[in-house]
């Protein structure tokens, strides 16, 4: 298998089948969340639809979330007079049903039931308010950072990614971000990769990724991104936080590839059945020298 074939294999492994159970579950859960919001905000008329990586076609199995955007009309105060109130009221609507974690502009939903407590629902709700009736521009509340709100446009973001021609590289970049603990904001990483591959859309995946990592390694301080939905949004503070890790892990990754190949970066493709895997796990158990028993404080 060539390196590019391997990377395409990795991508295939990371793809959630449209008719697969995982996708059906997330769509069903998305519908539940939508109903909760519609019932709670029955006096308003929010637009609730899918955004994020599902809409962009950049989902990866290792870390996938369905963004449910919940945008309120400009002149409708029933959901809240301010963006902060809209954000908090949306949180209140969801709290009886889920563990809700605040993200900068979104609300991440985790399971609340006893046996599955803390497991991801793979749904992030993004509350906002339209700037006007036509443009699709919205204001989102920022729960952290200096600015309390930002202006953006979901359709422009989706178009920017879909039209980039480099979605495979974006997906592998996201996988790298997760697998190696880089912790860069996905949104920033996407924009960086798309920007760096503008002139390399037809290059092989290996060349595309190598190029991106070389720039991260050698020019992290000069990296720059612009929000395609709003050039007035200053993404520098978020990018500044990511620079050291992007550079460090890119360096390590390029060395890994040189010394050990691409499998050292993304892992082997697993093909064994459940029984085969079980047998190997028990073989691993048999050679443990110092067994330990887990505990729970209670």
């Amino acid at each position, binding site marked *: 298998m060539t390196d590019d074939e391997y990377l395409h294999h990795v991508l295939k492994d990371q793809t959630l089948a449209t008719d697969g159970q995982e996708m059906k579950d997330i769509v069903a859960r998305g519908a539940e969340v939508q109903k909760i919001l519609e019932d709670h905000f029955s006096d308003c008329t929010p637009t609730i639809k899918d955004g994020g990586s599902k809409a962009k076609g950049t989902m990866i199995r290792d870390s996938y979330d369905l963004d449910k955007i919940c945008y309120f009309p400009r002149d409708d105060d029933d959901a809240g007079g301010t963006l902060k109130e809209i954000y908090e009221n949306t949180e209140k609507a969801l709290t009886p049903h889920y563990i809700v974690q605040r993200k900068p502009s979104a609300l991440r939903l985790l399971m609340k039931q006893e046996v*599955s407590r803390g*497991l991801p629902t793979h749904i992030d709700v993004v509350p906002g308010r339209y700037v006007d009736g036509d443009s699709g521009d919205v204001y989102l509340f920022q729960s952290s950072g200096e600015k309390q709100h930002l202006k953006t446009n979901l359709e422009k973001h989706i178009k920017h990614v879909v039209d980039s021609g480099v979605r495979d590289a974006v997906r592998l970049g996201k996988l790298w971000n997760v697998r190696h603990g880089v912790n860069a904001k996905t949104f920033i990483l996407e924009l960086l990769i798309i920007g760096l591959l503008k002139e390399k859309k037809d290059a092989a995946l290996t060349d595309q990724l190598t190029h991106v990592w070389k720039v991260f390694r050698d020019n992290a301080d000069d990296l720059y991104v612009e929000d395609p939905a709003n050039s007035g949004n200053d993404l520098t503070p978020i990018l500044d936080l990511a620079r050291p890790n992007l550079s460090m892990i890119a360096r390590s990754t390029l060395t890994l590839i040189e010394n050990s190949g691409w499998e050292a970066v993304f892992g082997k493709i697993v093909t064994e059945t459940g029984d085969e*895997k079980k047998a190997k796990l028990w073989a*691993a158990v048999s050679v443990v020298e110092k067994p*330990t028993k*887990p505990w*729970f*404080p209670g």
Partner: protein
Amino acid sequence: MVPRVRRPWYQKRPELLTQVQEDVRTFCTTLHLFTEDNVVWVRGTFPVKHEDDDLDHYALEIRFPEEYPDFLPVVREVGGRIPWTADAHNPEKGACLFLPEEKSEVFPEGSSFLDFLRGPIHNFFLGQSLVALGDRWPFGEHEHGVTAIAAFYQNLFDTKDVQVVGRLLVALAKDQIRGHLDCPCGSGKRVRHCHLTILLNAKKKVSPRMATESIQRWIQLSKLRGDDGLRA
């Protein structure tokens, strides 16, 4: 008076940080060490391995405490595979790899971070992978909460009497065992004619600091359970 600024462990002992870095690289290629806001983290993908085979993997975040290596790193699974439940031995704040009282056996002084990765962390996630496939915990599991702590000390002091266990544990939390005093078990005998050997042997496994922590944990967990802690 200028307040004393405590230096983080990796500044006090930079050679230890270098060793941790080396240990991470030795263990696998997908975990990395980061220093952010004066805290050392190891993050990335932890492989469950057998020989050269990666059998499974988990997204982990490992946080090194200020007092490392006196206190062990806290391990959290962040990939959303393991619920925050008692059966999974996975409270929200971090995985319970083993009973803290077993630290001197499981992770004796002088152990390296590599030993920690290959030992307790690997054992835990190896177990999780088997449980996810419907099998049992391969090395067994401790009872939850104070029951396990009590069982540990019942075994250590060779008695089922929880009241005696409690009193001996308090004695263990002191720096010295004084043979001429009355034995804390309540027998009326002097320590040297009663539980001295047991206490001295126990001291080899459990430091006064650990014994003190055990007492605090016992009290805290008993309060959560809603009793006075004298029932194991």
